[in-house]
């Protein structure tokens, strides 16, 4: 009798647990009801971003709303368009693609999402991604993908017995992926055999160049600004960081055209097998290892980013995200949409494509999934890149970041091309950056 009662209690408990789980899932999947409402959105375009948008019909079905994409452009054109919208004061759309580098400049154009999203849900995101999406205490964006760079190396070069022997003879140690920036430079110069093989390449312009410089500067123990927002990137740590680029360029360890290269140019070069080393984003992992797009598929090695003079990593990081405008006429629908676009299923979709997800659980799940598919390369990528997130740091989250970046990268270029010394170039850029920050505080 007692046993029967216990069994009954157990059964009831099981039923209750299953019921609660189902109810929990149902609650998780309740995206609200907005029948007849048309949500206008401005989303970043491009193959790597648009796959996620195939989920939009699911949200439409769940909520009864319609999504109208009023603009789909690359980040820079979208940024330009949004600035024009802010200037004209004519904002009739609700959701926009955003990025941690762009977000601070938009001020109060986007709302703080914290009051709209429960703590439980926010706790499912990677804490550093949420922290980096917060500007002046306001969560102005919900991250969809996080970026941080690590080393890709060409195993055809690194496993070549002749190269290995020559390296050991010259430096007295085995050839292995570099662990410091000095070693990275040394190997890049050693391995370079132009025009068929270069040691490495770096983005030669725009925020890409400023960001890579900032990464090494921070790894060397320096930073962009001090607490009073005085530029400090022209410190010794900064000069050493810039010298890294100058030395690589002078030694012809990078293609001469690297000073004009963007991410795509570098990615194409590495996939073509003309680079031995590349510090790059996670989004390239699948591309590099795909026989249809890469000549070195199956021979791509992965390693953590090098450390600098200060014994740490720079960890330049940022997140692609979604934001909701303050002028939105249905903020609940808009928030529901951005939550949906960054929910577990959306993040799994991003991760399967090789992007770094922003939900903690997805890292473990996608790694397990790749292992199950015997894709150790991608599983390893997620393991390494997740580890590197411990060092993740965004550029300064200040409105004038892009302006400051736009005075730094031409200065770096002028030093790399030998027009100025590293110190002179950085001093000039620091003077301009100081004026930009001063102007911002004056207005």
């Amino acid at each position, binding site marked *: 009798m007692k046993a029967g009662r216990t069994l009954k209690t157990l059964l009831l408990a099981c039923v209750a647990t299953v019921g609660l789980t189902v109810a929990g899932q149902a609650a998780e999947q309740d995206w609200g009801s907005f029948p007849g409402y048309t949500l206008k959105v401005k989303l970043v375009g491009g193959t790597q971003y648009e796959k996620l948008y195939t989920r939009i019909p699911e949200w439409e079905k769940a909520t009864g709303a319609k999504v109208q994409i009023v603009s789909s452009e690359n980040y*820079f054109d979208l*940024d*330009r368009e949004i*600035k*024009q919208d*802010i*200037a004209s*004061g004519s904002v009739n759309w609700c959701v926009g693609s955003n990025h941690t580098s762009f977000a601070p*400049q*938009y*001020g109060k*154009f986007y709302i703080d999402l914290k009051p709209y999203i429960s703590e439980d849900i926010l706790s499912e995101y990677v804490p550093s991604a949420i922290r980096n999406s917060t500007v002046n205490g306001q969560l102005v964006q919900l991250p969809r993908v996080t970026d941080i760079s690590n080393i890709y190396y060409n195993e055809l070069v690194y496993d070549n017995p002749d190269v290995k022997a020559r390296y050991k003879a010259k430096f007295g140690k085995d050839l292995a992926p570099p662990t410091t920036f000095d070693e990275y430079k040394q190997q890049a110069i050693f391995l370079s055999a*132009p*025009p068929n093989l270069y040691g490495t390449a770096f983005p*030669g*312009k*725009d925020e890409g160049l400023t960001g890579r410089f900032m990464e090494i500067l921070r790894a060397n123990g320096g930073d962009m600004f001090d607490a009073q927002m005085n530029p400090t990137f022209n410190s010794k740590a900064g000069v050493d960081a810039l010298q890294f680029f100058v030395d690589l360029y002078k030694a*012809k360890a990078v*293609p*001469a*055209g690297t*000073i*004009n290269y963007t991410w795509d140019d570098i990615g*194409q*070069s590495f996939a*073509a097998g*003309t680079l031995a080393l590349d510090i790059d984003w996670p989004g390239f992992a699948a591309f590099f290892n795909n026989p249809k797009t890469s000549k070195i598929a199956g021979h791509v090695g992965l390693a953590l980013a090098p450390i600098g003079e200060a014994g740490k990593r720079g960890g330049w990081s940022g997140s692609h995200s979604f934001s909701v405008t303050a002028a939105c006429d249905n903020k609940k629908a808009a928030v529901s949409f951005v939550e949906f676009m960054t929910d577990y299923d959306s993040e799994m979709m991003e991760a399967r494509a090789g992007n770094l997800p922003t939900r903690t659980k997805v890292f473990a799940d996608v790694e397990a999934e790749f292992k199950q598919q015997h894709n150790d390369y991608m599983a390893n990528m997620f393991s390494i890149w997740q580890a590197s997130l411990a060092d993740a740091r965004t550029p300064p989250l200040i*409105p004038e970041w*892009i*302006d400051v970046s*736009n005075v730094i990268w*031409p200065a770096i*270029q*002028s030093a*790399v*091309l030998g*027009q100025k010394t590293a110190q002179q170039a950085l001093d000039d850029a620091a003077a301009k950056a100081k004026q930009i920050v001063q*102007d911002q505080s*004056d*207005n």
Partner: protein
Amino acid sequence: MAETIEDGISLEGRISYPVRESRLRRFFRLGHAAPYILVLPSLFIVTFVVAIPLVISLWSSFTPYNLVRPWTLYHYIGFRNYLRLFNSSDFWWAFGRTVVFLTVALNLEMLLGLGLALLVNKITAGKRAVRTIMMFPMMFSPILVGFQFKYIFNDNVGLINNALTSLGFMHYPIAWLVNAILAPLTILIAETWMSTSVFAILLLAGLLALPSEPLEAAKVDGCNAWQAFRHITLPFLMPFIYIAMTIRSLDVARAYDMVKIMTDGGPAQRTELLWTLIARTGYEDARMGMANAMGYVSILLSIAVTVYFYRKLMAARSYMGGAE
């Protein structure tokens, strides 16, 4: 006199008191207003499309106007933007480069366009087909032309370097888009490829309108081909050349997209032109006040070029006895 007084007689023949008609009513009654009324719509449009934006942008050049902080449009800072510009070596280098680029590009395009037009004019069969083919580069958007030439001049996978390497002319790639001399040159080549046909088409129209009598008379008088070209064809074509020059000098800023794609003004500002500098300042940096100040200084360049070509056009017309 502010008002007019008119005497009037009523229908019943009674003498009426003098009626004062306003100047405005008389203006309308006599039909003097018609031309002004007809012009009003266009004045209205010009005011809204040209004058108001010009005034606002001029005003904004005296403010720290930032696109993402609209309230800065009302913060007057006097000539600060202009003073900074006059002390900015980056701006004056870009200004100088733009002047050189304009001068070289326009003259080169004119010479090549003239040569092309003279050649096409000599064709006896298939002239229409050749004319159409000649217009192909004009049909490409500058962005496409930018990508096309960026690829052609790419140091690593570019067509030219690969060809030179394969033919054994070089062993180390030439950095076409980086070198201080070659980078502006590649942009010049792309711009010339894209726009020479504009000159060719306009000058071909001039050649087709050229009367044959003076050339036949010159031949009878014993002129050789060069003398006929130098003293008859060229003077006749000069108005067409100046019109083409004026149009192209105003239109040449279309090259912005091309430069943006090929080098974005770099590296180290080696190919920075006013257009790339102004666009970056105004949109990427959002400092529209400063960008407008740059725009107003560079307008002086446009006005100077236009006035110069207009005067030349007038002189050429007088020379060939054209209507004033």
